[in-house]
């Protein structure tokens, strides 16, 4: 209902029926011949009019002429769309960024509508792969309207916008999942599909956690480009700060650099990043360490030691959890011990992060407090189970005493009543 109301008001603004709240570069005309003629013409020509109902620009009081120029007060097609009156019509792919940049690169204009919005998108776009290709005359390369659409542009925070975090991958996929289009550039067309299998997509799309990354968080948006091997750790490190810090101090950093390997990608992959498991570290069949390390090497032993540390803590937490669960199920109050066990889980998370130092001693140090807490929780669980047994024995004794007392009273009643 509320959405419908907003749309109606927006269309009313767009049709010039209501005076806009924001002052614009050019006042909204009392009548708009662009709208009336395009609506009358129907078909494709009417589509922009319909789409503008949801357009952020229309909502802010802007009209066709603010972008396309011309005279919206004149009924005559030729006069209203006369280039001498500033009419620019539909821009070509090379002109799109400067067409939008008329306002979006102008800090003074943008301050009037959205002071928080950056005004360097056009300049940034020029540095991007997309921008460079467009500049070289590639008409298939993405421009502003490829992602934001031409009419019906929505604010980034609008969940229906194609650039809203949960929709970005689909928007990129329009070109990047098209193998015919991508073939010309020698780029695989499966990145989006791989991304959708990743832990990042699962977090963003299934859990609706908007802090999880999508394409533009790693590649940039207006300045989109594939990261170089040396910048991967920096990109991942934007969110995974400690891991990146530990990695940068580790022996792997210089080794990977010398081998021109892309830091994080070597073990975790790029688009199809899976939830890391403890099996990724170590010498088991799923261990990524084996890609480079062989039995007998120091690295092989280190991997094995780190894996043992992680699995030992994990197993101890599970044991404590199981004992506490049994006690809780029997009605014992063990919530404090269960709460404290959370510290052990935190230690495990920390130890998994410390693995990025690739130093078994450091992992051991991180595991140790968790083991201590788990042992304490396990003992608390055992104590609770002992206490449970004590209570049951106590209950049995009490019930016997109570039964005896009740029976004695019963005998007393009989004795009294027999006497009377």
């Amino acid at each position, binding site marked *: 209902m509320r959405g419908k109301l907003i749309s109606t008001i927006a269309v009313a603004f767009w049709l010039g029926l209501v005076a806009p709240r924001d002052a614009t570069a050019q006042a909204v005309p009392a009548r708009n011949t662009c709208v009336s003629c395009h609506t009358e013409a129907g078909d494709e020509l009417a589509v922009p009019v319909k789409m503008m109902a949801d357009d952020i620009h229309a909502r802010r009081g802007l009209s066709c002429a603010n972008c396309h120029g011309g005279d919206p007060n004149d009924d005559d097609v030729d006069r209203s769309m006369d280039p001498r009156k500033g009419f620019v019509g539909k821009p070509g792919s090379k002109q799109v960024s400067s067409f939008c940049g008329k306002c979006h690169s102008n800090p003074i204009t943008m301050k009037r509508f959205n002071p928080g919005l950056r005004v360097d998108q056009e300049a940034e776009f020029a540095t991007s792969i997309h921008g460079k290709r467009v500049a070289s005359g590639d008409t298939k390369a993405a421009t502003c309207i490829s992602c934001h659409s031409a009419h019906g542009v929505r604010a980034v925070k609008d969940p229906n916008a194609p650039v809203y975090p949960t929709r970005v991958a689909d928007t990129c996929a329009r070109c990047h999942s098209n193998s015919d289009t991508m073939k010309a550039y020698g780029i695989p067309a499966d990145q989006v599909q791989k991304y959708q299998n990743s832990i990042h997509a699962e977090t963003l799309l299934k859990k609706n956690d908007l802090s999880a990354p999508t394409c533009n968080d790693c590649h940039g948006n207006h300045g989109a480009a594939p990261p170089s091997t040396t910048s991967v750790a920096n990109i991942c490190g934007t969110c995974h700060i400690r891991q990146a810090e530990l990695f940068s101090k580790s022996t792997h950093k210089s080794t990977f650099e010398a081998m021109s390997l892309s830091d994080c990608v070597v073990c975790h992959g790029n688009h199809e990043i899976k939830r890391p498991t403890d099996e990724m570290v170590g010498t088991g069949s799923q261990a990524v360490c084996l890609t480079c390390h062989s039995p007998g090497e120091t690295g092989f032993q280190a991997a094995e030691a780190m894996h043992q540390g992680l699995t030992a803590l994990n197993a101890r937490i599970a044991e404590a959890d199981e004992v506490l669960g049994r006690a809780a199920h029997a*009605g*014992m*109050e*063990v*919530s*404090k011990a269960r709460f404290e066990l959370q510290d052990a889980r935190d230690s495990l998370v920390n130890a998994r992060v410390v693995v990025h130092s690739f130093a078994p001693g450091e992992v051991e140090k991180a595991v140790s407090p968790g083991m201590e807490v788990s042992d304490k929780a396990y003992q608390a669980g055992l104590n609770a189970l002992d206490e449970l047994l004590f*209570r*049951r024995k*106590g*209950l049995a004794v*009490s*019930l016997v005493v*109570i*039964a005896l*007392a*009740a029976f004695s*009273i*019963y005998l*007393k*009643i009989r004795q*009294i*009543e027999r006497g009377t």
Partner: protein
Amino acid sequence: MSLSQNGDAMSTRRSTVATWLDERCGLEAVREFAARKTVPVHRHTIWYYFGGMALFLFTIQVVTGILLLLYYRPSAESAFESVQFIMTEVRFGWLIRSLHSWSANVLIAALFVHMFSVFFLRAYKARRELTWTSGVFLFFLSLAFGFSGYLLPWNTLAFFATKVGTEVAGVVPIVGSFLVRFLRGGEEVTGATLTRFYGFHVAILPALTTALLLIHLLLVQRHGMHIPDSVKPPVKTMKFFPNFMLRDAIGWLVALGALAALAALFPWELGEKADPFMPAPEGIRPEWFFMFMFETLKILPAKIGPFDGEVLGILGFGIGGLLLLLVPFIGTNGSRTTALVFKAAGIIAILYIVIFTVAGYVK
């Protein structure tokens, strides 16, 4: 000194003490009353035991409640932790707390049985009107004990149930918003509500209950046990002391055993500490004895004619409570039709309470 001489000396000393006490407290009158007091014996005698059972359970509440007071801390910051401490660190604290919680619930159940048995046997009739009215007030006070005590551990379920429960008071026309603020000690359920409920639970309600209980017991003694109309004379009797009292004691011992078993096998859950900033969890429900009212309010449509459904529901319960209090003063003509109408009303009330309570748990 021989053994028989020892016994004689002891007996003389006891008699001296008894005489001394009798001269000062009039114990002889009490003893004479106890010796004279009898209980009718007939096929409905079993229902006489429920009053004594309620009294026994109330005593357990007082004793365990006082013990809990030694450790309980009534503030939002420490209430939950103090109950957790009682449950885990205090020796036999788990037993005291579980006995208190279980006994409270069994007490309400015993009161339901006691009240309905008196209702169906029509023991509220002439001369016993005030016994009934004081009993119904005691029942209401017990519900208030339950409502205020539920919040004291300051756990999530209790917190949100109290929020919903006190919101209901806001529906009452004219005084609703005042009632909510009075109950909560502010606009929202906060630490101020906890302190207030604690005050109700350990001071105001016990004082009122003690006074009313004394009146109720005095009235029961004054008028004696009611003999239902269906029991035709001659009616056999038994002595209250010791015959009936010893039978009572057996019932109390059985209740004590059952409570001990419940406390040991199903210790009263503590749940998670209340966090007022968290969204309300699923499955919020009041104590079982409020469930039928909660369910009724839930199924009532938002509007019934020009009236708000919830307001009508609350008014309905208010009128129901008032009718319950006034039972001895309405339909006292003793006709068979009135008796049948009362019986039918009682059965419908029981069915309604049972069905709506079960429905609240089955969903």
